[in-house]
């Protein structure tokens, strides 16, 4: 019996029990679908993060509290929980590294409720400096950014992100209108052009205003822009040296865009491995389902096995037939799961730039075939060992 005939016999057998065959492959479908969707989702997140940083420009230096990476087990968590950065550190960088950086901007982040007439939104507040628009390549498409004077006076002025402005004001022009932020009145001076989901739903205020009006007084991060023509690594070193005058080395971390991307990339890689492993469990369960159904099939088709042996089939012919059936089930499940994963990626692409990585396709299909081989072997061997006389007598 050649491979073509075995394939044809296996296919016919599967088509005789369409619903059962489909239900058997469901575990593999879900497993492969989950692997493909999650891999493309994480890939999309990575693309999104990279795009955000590319938008900012490549010559930025970020300072965060705590020891991020650098062998500390506390990692990013320490950056969020510690509050080592103060306003004075902005001045230290400005004075000590003035030959290397030209814009130094502190950032304070918090969440507040913003209200205009009857509309209210819970949104992200980004407290920063008057020149941060140049730092982050953000532009106002209505009105203006807040000024140095407004920053120095801790004026209650606000710049709205594109989507936040739409949600609060609809078609109305927000510029010069008054909004309530945590119950206090703020004048809207501008609306930012569409940029990224983070920015678009944010409320941008002078950092001094945030410090004076909210509980959050600690600086979350300091961003500096390296001067043109200055080596980025050297500028980074100078910022680090400047801060070491007031802080210990484990109280802050200086990173370039590349460092941040690397850190995020390694976190996302761990996340990918974790998620793919969890989805792999579904493939394992799918494999057990295949083995279970194949064992049922061997019992149900005992008489057929006996007949085939009487008509000239060898044990190997029988083994091959059942193995191919198991692999066909798992491979078909893999292909359906792959198509579903690809379709889900198309949906995810409406939100973020997700795509199915090329390596995920052979990996998912290879793994589904492997599941068929591993879990189909025992039933196939069991079928091949059946005694033809006993099998023919089976009722």
């Amino acid at each position: 019996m050649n491979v073509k005939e075995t394939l044809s016999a296996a296919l016919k057998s599967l088509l005789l029990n369409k619903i059962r065959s489909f239900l058997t492959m469901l575990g593999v479908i879900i497993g492969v679908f989950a692997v493909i969707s999650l891999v493309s989702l994480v890939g999309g997140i990575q693309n999104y993060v990279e795009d955000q940083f590319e938008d900012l420009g490549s010559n930025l230096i970020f300072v965060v509290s705590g020891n991020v990476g650098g062998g500390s087990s506390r990692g990013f968590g320490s950056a969020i929980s510690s509050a080592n950065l103060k306003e004075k550190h902005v001045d230290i960088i400005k004075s000590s590294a003035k030959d290397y950086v030209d814009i130094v901007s502190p950032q304070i982040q918090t969440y507040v409720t913003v209200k205009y007439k009857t509309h209210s939104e819970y949104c992200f507040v980004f407290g920063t400096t008057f020149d941060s628009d140049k730092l982050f390549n953000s532009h106002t498409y209505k009105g203006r950014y807040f000024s140095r004077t407004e920053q120095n006076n801790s004026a209650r002025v606000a710049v709205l992100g594109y989507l936040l402005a739409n949600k609060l004001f609809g078609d109305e022009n927000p510029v010069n209108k008054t909004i309530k932020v945590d119950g206090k009145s703020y004048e809207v001076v501008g609306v930012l052009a569409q940029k990224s989901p983070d920015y678009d739903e944010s409320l941008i205020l002078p950092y001094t205003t945030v410090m004076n009006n909210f509980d959050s007084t600690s600086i979350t991060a300091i961003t500096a822009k390296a001067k043109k023509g200055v080596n980025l690594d050297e500028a980074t070193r100078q910022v680090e040296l400047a801060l070491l005058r007031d802080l210990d080395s484990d109280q802050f971390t200086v990173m370039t865009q590349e460092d941040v991307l690397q850190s995020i990339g390694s976190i996302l890689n761990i996340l990918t491995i974790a998620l793919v492993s969890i989805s792999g469990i579904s493939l394992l369960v799918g494999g057990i389902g295949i083995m279970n159904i194949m064992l049922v099939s061997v019992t149900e088709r005992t008489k057929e096995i006996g007949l085939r042996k009487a008509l000239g089939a060898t044990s190997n012919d029988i083994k091959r037939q059942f193995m191919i059936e198991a692999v066909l089930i798992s491979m078909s499940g893999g292909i359906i799961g792959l198509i579903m994963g690809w379709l889900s990626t198309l949906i995810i692409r409406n939100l973020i730039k997700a795509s199915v990585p090329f390596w995920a396709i052979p990996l998912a299909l290879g793994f589904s075939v492997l599941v068929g081989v591993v879990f189909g072997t025992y039933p196939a061997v069991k079928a091949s060992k059946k005694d033809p006389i006993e099998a023919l007598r089976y009722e």
Partner: protein
Amino acid sequence: MTPVLKAKNLCKGYEVGDEVITAVCNINLTINKGDFIAITGKSGSGKSTLMHMLGLLDTPTSGELILNGKNTKGMSERELAQVRNTDIGFVFQAFNLLQRTTVLENVMLPLIYSRIPNSEHEKIALEVIEQVGLSHRLKNKSNELSGGERQRVAIARALVNNPSLILADEPTGNLDSKMGEEIEKILINLNNEGRTLILVTHDEDLAKIAKRQVILKDGAILSER
């Protein structure tokens, strides 16, 4: 003339605990080309055990079985399967057709295990289906056929590899008398065409259609006529 099948002192025993139960012993039988032999006997006489050994589905405990001049003793599982495929055609009491599979596919089944090229399978199958008068039922599934038609499909399947020996085990056992007679006629016609048949039955009337009759009792040949 070389006999199609020759059994020499064929014995089969089963171990049950410490005891050996003999199912068949000292069977000596020569079947020549064109023979039509009925093996009869009461239930438990060893008919089925002998048929399984003659069909190479079971191996004798002792003795030899020579098929078309080849001694089957010591043949590997693969060799035995090949001999079953090319030299023996089986007709079972319960038809043993593949369910929800067409007449044509059922008849072609032994061919997929043969060395005959795939391109010839359908042509050969169509010829034997015509021989049993089922050309109009080619695309029907086995569960859409009457009992008599199912047994004719089984006979066509037994003929498809042009075997030198056809083994029929109670071929009319599951049929009413009218359909049984149809099958009897087909078997007689096959023998008249020169085919060698072994009919295993407990039915004395059916055994009468054979040219020779071997009666078994307690695993041994009681008489032969």
